C-alpha cells in the first residue's frame, strides 16, 4: 500500500442553479489576460448540450484519454510514433471554432461617431484580430437549451437514446435539463501529464493538483489533445499550456478555490481523500463496467489503523490524515456512494465527483414509471432515488444486475 493524499471535489448537481458565478470568479482571477481570453478554466454547461469546446465528449473525434490495447494502457491521442507526424498538425486538436472567437465591442464608436440623425451602437470585434466579427458561438452558447435542435440534440451522451426518448427533447412539457459545472478533474491517471513530450506537466505530491511548469512547456499542445475533458488550454499569445490550478495559492493560505468560495448554490465540497497509488494502473486497466467500483476501491478508509500507519510511512502528514477523516468528499464518494466520477471510461480516474441531478429523473421517469414500486421508492427515499438516477443504474436494477452503488 502506497498511501497518497489528494484534495478532491464533489459537485452536487441538484443544487446548481446555473448562475455561472464560479466561471466569472475564475475568469476574473486567472484568465483575464491576453491569449487567455477564450479560456474558461471553470465553465458551466447546460445538459443536454454540446458544451465547451463543442462536443468535447466525442472522443471518436477528439481522441482524448486512454484505451486498453493488448492489456496495456495507451494514450488515444498520441504515441511516440504518432508524435512525429503530428508535430505540425494534430488532426484531433480543437481549433478556435470548437471554442469560440473571444469578442468585445467597438465602444469607441459611442464617443467618436460623427453627429447624425441616429444613435450609434458598438459592434462586436474580435479580441484576437481586433476586426469586426459576427458572433456565431460562445463558451456557453447553448445555455438553457438555446438552439436545442442543433446543440442539445447533438449531445454525444444521447447517442444511445431511442427515437421516442429523443422526441422528448423537443417537447416543452417533457423536456428536462440540468447544469454541469466543470473544472479540471485533477485525475489520478492524467493523460495530459502522460502525453507531455517536455515533461512540463506534473501531479503535485502533497495534494494531487495537476500543474504545468511554465518554464518547461514547449507548446507541443499534446496535453490539449490528450485531456478528454479538454481542461488544458493553449495560450496563443505566450505559447504556453495553461489550466485550472485549483487556486493552489489560495489553498496554501487556507482559502477555498475562487469557484468554490463564490458558489451561490453551495454545490461544491472540497476534502482530502487518501488513496493507494500502487493500484492506479491495475484499476485503470479494468473493463468498463468495473471501473466505477474499482476507482472507488482505490480510496482508503482514513479511520483504518493500517491505512493511517501506511500514510505515516509514506510521509503523509498527520494533519492531512485528520483532514481526510473529516472530508465531506469521502462521505459522498465512499460512505454514501452517491457521488460518481464523470466519464470513468476515459480511464484518467478523475478526482472530481458529481452527485447526479435528480430533478430531471423525477420528471422524465418517476412520474410514468413502469414499475409503481420504483415510483414509490423515489418519493420515499430521496437518497435511494438519487442513486437510481445515476447513469445506467436504472437499467442495471431492472435487469437485476449487481449495482456498484451502496444504497444503505
Amino acid at each position, binding site marked *: 500500500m502506497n498511501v497518497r493524499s489528494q484534495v478532491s471535489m464533489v459537485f452536487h448537481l441538484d443544487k446548481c442553479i446555473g448562475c455561472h458565478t464560479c466561471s466569472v470568479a475564475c475568469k476574473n482571477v486567472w484568465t483575464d489576460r491576453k491569449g487567455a481570453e477564450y479560456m474558461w478554466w471553470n465553465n458551466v454547461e447546460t445538459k443536454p448540450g454540446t458544451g465547451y469546446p463543442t462536443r468535447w465528449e466525442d472522443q471518436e473525434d477528439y481522441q482524448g484519454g486512454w484505451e486498453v490495447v493488448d492489456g496495456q494502457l495507451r494514450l488515444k491521442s498520441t504515441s511516440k510514433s504518432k508524435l512525429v507526424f503530428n508535430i505540425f498538425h494534430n488532426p484531433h486538436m480543437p481549433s478556435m471554432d470548437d471554442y469560440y472567437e473571444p469578442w468585445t*465591442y467597438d465602444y469607441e464608436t459611442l464617443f467618436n461617431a460623427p453627429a447624425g440623425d441616429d444613435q450609434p451602437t458598438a459592434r462586436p470585434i474580435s479580441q484576437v484580430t481586433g476586426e469586426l466579427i459576427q458572433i456565431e458561438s460562445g463558451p456557453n452558447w447553448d445555455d438553457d437549451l438555446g438552439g436545442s435542435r442543433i446543440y442539445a440534440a447533438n449531445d454525444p451522451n444521447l447517442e444511445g437514446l431511442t427515437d421516442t426518448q429523443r422526441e422528448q427533447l423537443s417537447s416543452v412539457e417533457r423536456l428536462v435539463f440540468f447544469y454541469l459545472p466543470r473544472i479540471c478533474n485533477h485525475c489520478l491517471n492524467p493523460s495530459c501529464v502522460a502525453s507531455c513530450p517536455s515533461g512540463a506537466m506534473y501531479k503535485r505530491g502533497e495534494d494531487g493538483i495537476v500543474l504545468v511548469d511554465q518554464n518547461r512547456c514547449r507548446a507541443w499542445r499534446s496535453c490539449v489533445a490528450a485531456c478528454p475533458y479538454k481542461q488544458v488550454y493553449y495560450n496563443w499569445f505566450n505559447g504556453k499550456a495553461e489550466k485550472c490550478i485549483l487556486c493552489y495559492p489560495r489553498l496554501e493560505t487556507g482559502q477555498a478555490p475562487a469557484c468554490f468560495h463564490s458558489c451561490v448554490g453551495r454545490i461544491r465540497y472540497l476534502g482530502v481523500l487518501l488513496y493507494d497509488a500502487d493500484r492506479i494502473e491495475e484499476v485503470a486497466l479494468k473493463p468498463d463496467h468495473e471501473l466505477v467500483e474499482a476507482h472507488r476501491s482505490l480510496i482508503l478508509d482514513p479511520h483504518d489503523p493500517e491505512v493511517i500507519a501506511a500514510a505515516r510511512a509514506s510521509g503523509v502528514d498527520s494533519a492531512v490524515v485528520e483532514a481526510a477523516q473529516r472530508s465531506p468528499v469521502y462521505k459522498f464518494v465512499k460512505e454514501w456512494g452517491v457521488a460518481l466520477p464523470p466519464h470513468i471510461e476515459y480511464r484518467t480516474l478523475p478526482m472530481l465527483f458529481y452527485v447526479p441531478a435528480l430533478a430531471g429523473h423525477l420528471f422524465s421517469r418517476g412520474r410514468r414509471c413502469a414499475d409503481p414500486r420504483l415510483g414509490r421508492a423515489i418519493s420515499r427515499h430521496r437518497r435511494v432515488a438519487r442513486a437510481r438516477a445515476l447513469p445506467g443504474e436504472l437499467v442495471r436494477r431492472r435487469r437485476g444486475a449487481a449495482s456498484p452503488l451502496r444504497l444503505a
Partner: protein
Amino acid sequence: MEDTSALYSDIVLPAATWYEKDDLNSTDLHSFIHPLQAAVPPCWESKSDWRIFQSIAKKFSELAAKHLPDPVEDVVATPLAHDTPAEMAQPTPSDWAHGEGEPIPGKTMPGFKVVVRDYKNLYNRFNSLGRNVRENGLGAHGTHYDCADFYDQALDQGPVEDWGGQRYPSLAVDKDACNLVLELATVTNGELAWRSYKDMEAKTGLQLAHLAENNRAHRVSFADIVAKPTRFVNSPMWSGLIESGRPYSPFTYNVEQGVPWRTLTGRQHFYLDHPGYIDFGEHLPTYKPKPPTKEYGDLRLSQSDGRTLMLNHLTPHGKWHIHSTYGDNQRMTTLSRGCEPLWINDRDAAELGVADNDWVEAHNDHGVVVTRAAVSARIPRGICLHYHSPERTYSVPKSPLRGNRRAGGHNSLTRIRLKPNLMIGGYGQFTYHFNYWGPTGTNRDTHIYVRKLDQVEW
C-alpha cells in the same frame, strides 16, 4: 442609470458605485442593514448620490439668492396614503366631481398642505436635520415616536451646521447622515422602538412595549454595521417579530399580539365587498382568462407582410443582468450570446424559416426590435421571450421597417396599462405609498409580428 438614456441626455451625473461611497442599504427581503463603504475614492468625475444632490442644491441656492430671494408658499396635494387613517377614509365610494357628496381634503380627495419653499437656503437645509424632527417626532407605517433627546444629543456630540441664527445636526457628510439615520430609526435604536410600541399601546389598548423592553439600550452606528452584519430589532414599523435570532415572518406581530390588521374589520380579507371590485368580478380571488389578442390593440396599424408570425411577447427578468445593469459587461455578453436574443420555439422558428442565431425583426404599433433568434424547444409555441433590459449601445442593428433607423429595446414594443381596480382606495385595503404600493403596470404582455431578416445594417 441606463447607458442608452445617457446617450440622449444633455447632462450626465456620474454616480459613484457601491464600493466608492458610504451609504446604507436595506430591503424588506431580510432583516439586516447593509453599509456601502468607500473602499476607493470615486473614479474620475463621479460622486456619491449624496454629493451630487448636495452640489445641485449648492448651485441652486446661489442662483436662488438672486432670482428667488424670498420664501415661496406652495400648495402640495398628498395622496390618501397607505398605513394612515386615510386608508379607511371613504368606506362608501362616491365621486364629488360627479356631484356625489362633498369634496373633503384627506377623505374624498387628496389632502392639501401649504409648504414654504426657502430656495435661497436649500443648500443649508440639505445639510441640516430640521427642527421639526425635534418638535414633532418621527414615524412611518402608522407609527409615531418622540426623539427630541436624541436630536439634542446629536447637537451635543456630532458635527453641526450654524445658519440663520440656529444650530442643527449636520448632514453634510455622507457618513454623518448615515449615523443620524441609524440613531433616529426604531429598528436600530431600541429606545425609540420601545417608545413607538408605547405609542401603539395608546392606539390599540394592548400591551406591546414588552416587545422592545430588552432592547432599550440597543444602538447601532455606521461603524457597527461595517464591523459585522447587524440585524434590526423588533419595531412596530414591521409586522414580523425577530427577537433572539427568530427569522422574520410577516404578521407575527398581528397574530401573536392581537394587533388588528389595517382593514375595515381588523381581520385579513379574502372577500372585498367594494362595489368597484364587485363590478370587476374580483371581490374574491378569481381566475380571469387572457383577453383576445385584438383586445390588446397593439397590432392595429402593423402589417403582417410576407413570412410573419404573430407571437405573444414576454419580457421577463434576464439571467445575465439586473434590469439594465451589468448586461453589457463583457463577461455577461460572452456567457450569453453577445446580444439580448429573442427566444422562440423551434417549430415556430421553422415556420418563419429562422434558424438558431439568425437575425429577426419584431414589431408592433409601438416599436421595433432587431436581434438574433435563440431557437429552443424550451419555449412554448406562440410566445417569445425577450429578457429585459437590453441596452441599445451595443449589438443593436438598424430596422428596415423603420426606414433603417436604429431598432429599439424590449420596451419599444410594450406599453403600460393601469389596472383600474388597483386604483380604488380608502376602503381599508391596499392604498398608495411611494415606491411601496401602487397599481401594477401590466406592461409585460403584448403581441408582436416576427419575421426573418436576411441582412442587417449597422
